[in-house]
């Protein structure tokens, strides 16, 4: 085992961190939030130039053959900047579905466009009734000659409002919550039968409610074998979110430490109060535990045995969720009133962390799953 980055990985880390440091200070980010897309289109182009948008795809298909470690590096840096661009939606989620489910022809058609920054995708998966159950899909796909028609309501589609195309999960056969009979379909977001309602999440990132009324979809791979790809991609997504969470938590901690050193009350920096020192230490311990689990997630993201992978990601999500909540609440508390304001950065990290806690299942949900699977240590 070796926790050190290779030379290439270090270069990647340095360049992404530099980009974020240059383009993602608090004031710049505020401006990006004001745009219609809710992010900075010119930065999207920069990500493409740097090779970030093609990172996880095979070289032969127009990518850079990066693995889970590379994704971790990018997502952690993006967490530090509270990056708004649809990287997670396009590259991690939709890109993952292309890697695991699409045909060679589809990959050849789409991946170069993604890598070039010309195609933004979103994964239209969750539905109102589903909560965190990935197989709870009521949207239907029905065949009419050579054409597939999709109908249903998709909810909380990350960056669904600005995506050019959607990858929609839909039921081809079987009952609600069956694992079999779920297909993945590529849908042009501007096509007839697709209507979208975009909105901001609590942290300012964008999402959409999407109604499909007989919209045309092109199956990704075999039209009724989508579920294992969905599970796999969501596990990769949890690993990516874990890395992002580390970036988010690290900034909250650094900001808090700075504040403890500079804020004076009772004639001294408040960081001299031992009780606050211990609180900062507990935050640190919580982050290090989370960081370890982010490494575990990265290690297990490519695990082929689905049950082992699910078990690992449940554990990861529990740790990330718990550490994140603790660190976020403490960061606000140790700042006092200033931490409660929009004008100050720590609250924005707290809100992003709260979204990460919820995405793809909160800590309690995953604790339940992990317990049902018998925990991590086999008897």
């Amino acid at each position: 085992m070796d926790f050190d980055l290779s030379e290439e990985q270090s270069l990647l880390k340095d360049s992404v961190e530099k980009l974020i440091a240059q383009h993602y200070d608090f004031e710049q980010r505020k401006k990006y939030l004001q745009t219609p897309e809710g992010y900075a289109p010119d930065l999207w182009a920069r990500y493409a130039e740097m090779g970030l948008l093609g990172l996880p795809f095979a070289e032969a298909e127009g990518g850079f053959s990066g693995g889970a470690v590379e994704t971790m590096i990018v997502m952690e840096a993006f967490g530090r900047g509270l990056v708004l661009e649809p990287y997670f939606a396009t590259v991690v989620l939709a890109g993952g579905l292309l890697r695991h489910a699409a045909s060679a022809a589809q990959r050849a058609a789409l991946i170069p466009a993604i890598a070039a920054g010309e195609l933004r995708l979103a994964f239209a998966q969750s539905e109102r009734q589903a909560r965190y159950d990935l197989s709870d899909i009521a949207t239907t796909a029905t065949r009419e000659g050579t054409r597939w028609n999709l109908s249903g309501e998709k909810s909380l589609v990350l960056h669904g409002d600005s995506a050019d195309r959607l990858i929609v999960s839909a039921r081809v056969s079987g009952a609600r919550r069956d694992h079999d009979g779920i297909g993945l379909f590529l849908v042009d977001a501007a096509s007839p039968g697709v209507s979208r309602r975009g909105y901001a999440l609590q942290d300012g990132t964008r999402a959409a409610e999407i109604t499909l009324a007989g919209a045309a979809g092109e199956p990704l791979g075999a039209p009724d074998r989508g579920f294992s790809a969905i599970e796999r991609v969501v596990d990769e997504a949890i690993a990516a979110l874990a890395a992002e969470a580390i970036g988010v938590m690290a900034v909250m901690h650094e900001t808090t430490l700075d504040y403890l050193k500079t804020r004076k009350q009772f004639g001294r920096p408040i960081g001299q109060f031992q009780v606050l020192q211990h609180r900062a230490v507990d935050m640190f311990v919580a982050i290090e535990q989370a960081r370890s689990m982010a490494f575990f997630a990265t290690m297990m993201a490519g695990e082929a045995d689905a049950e082992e992978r699910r078990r690992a990601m449940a554990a990861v999500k529990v740790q990330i969720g718990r550490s994140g909540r603790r660190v976020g609440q403490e960061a606000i508390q140790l700042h006092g009133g200033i931490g409660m304001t929009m004008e100050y950065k720590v609250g924005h990290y707290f809100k992003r962390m709260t979204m990460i806690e919820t995405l793809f299942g909160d800590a309690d949900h995953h604790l339940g799953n992990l317990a049902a699977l018998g925990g991590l240590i086999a008897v």
Partner: protein
Amino acid sequence: MDLAFTKEEIAFRDEMRHIFRNEIPETIRRKATEGRHLSREEIVTSQRILNARGLAVPHWPSEWGGRDWSPVQLYFYQDEMQQANVPPPLPFNVSMVGPVIASFGNERQKRAFLPRIANIDIWFCQGFSEPGSGSDLASLRTSAKRAGDFYIVNGQKTWTTLAQYADWIFCLVRTDASAKQQEGISFLLIDMKTPGITVRPIQTIDGGHEVNEVFLDDVKVPVENLVGEENKGWDYAKFLLGNERTGIARVGTSKERIRRIKELAALERAGEQRVIDNPRFREKLAAVEVELKALELTQLRVVANERRGARGKPDPASSILKIKGSEIQQATTELLMDVVGPYAMPYQPQFEEGWNEPPIGPDYAAPAAPTYFNWRKISIYGGSNEIQRNIIAKAILGL
């Protein structure tokens, strides 16, 4: 010792319950239940209805509208009001500046202010905190210099809750810069319309506007607006902060929140199972209920004790109420987030103004995350929970 409530006390409770649930407009109570912000007008309406029935200031001296109730009666009054989601009479008026004027003000001030404070004809805000003086309040720098019949006030207050609605502000100001910190502070009442006062909004992380900065620039305040003696303001502030502390426990509010969480958890499903039937969720909820029951009795004990103690000297045990009460309230906001799950994520500020677009997810989900964010404040204001622990360590444990 008799630990049961008497028949009379129970009858009193039922009377309070009846009044709160029947006299305050349902629309106002509904808004409070749903976690929406009340307008100025709604807060005023509710307090005037209470005041007309002698229920705005029962804890004041009887000549100014107080009812001479026992601690148990006061407890039922508060508990029933909170459980009915009746907006409490404005705390800045009835729990803070009112009791200070009643205890330390002169006759003219009492006559001029107390009835109008009780009836919220005047809305007061609290000008204590400053950018450099939060926990260390006694270091405050806003100065008041005597010039004939006036004080000239200069400085800045911050975190001033609902200053945008306020007619008056009660301020701690420094009147003697050469004295020891605590001994140079005075308590002034200032009309917000006085030239030189600027209010700037501060937006909180939930997107709301409830706090402000208040700038005071050569503000002329008549000397007659000094409460009590010059340079004795710190004593009055301590008296006031003790009351504020106790008020933050909000046991009835938490009871009502838990009830609502149970209702909503019965509507939400995860798969075939209702959220309320999930054993893990039930255990989490039950654990909070245990803490709340304990707090309820602790509060009754503290209040009974304070009654016996010296006037103007709050029981340091009230810090227990502040710590536990805030933690429990915050825990309920997390439980509501658990209930709504992914639908805590959409930011839907329009739910405040009435729905003009259909809600995203269930209509009760919109306030869950904003309330979770906003209620982080409860462990910060009213003396942060760290400061409360310092008080207990010193004043009770002798450390």
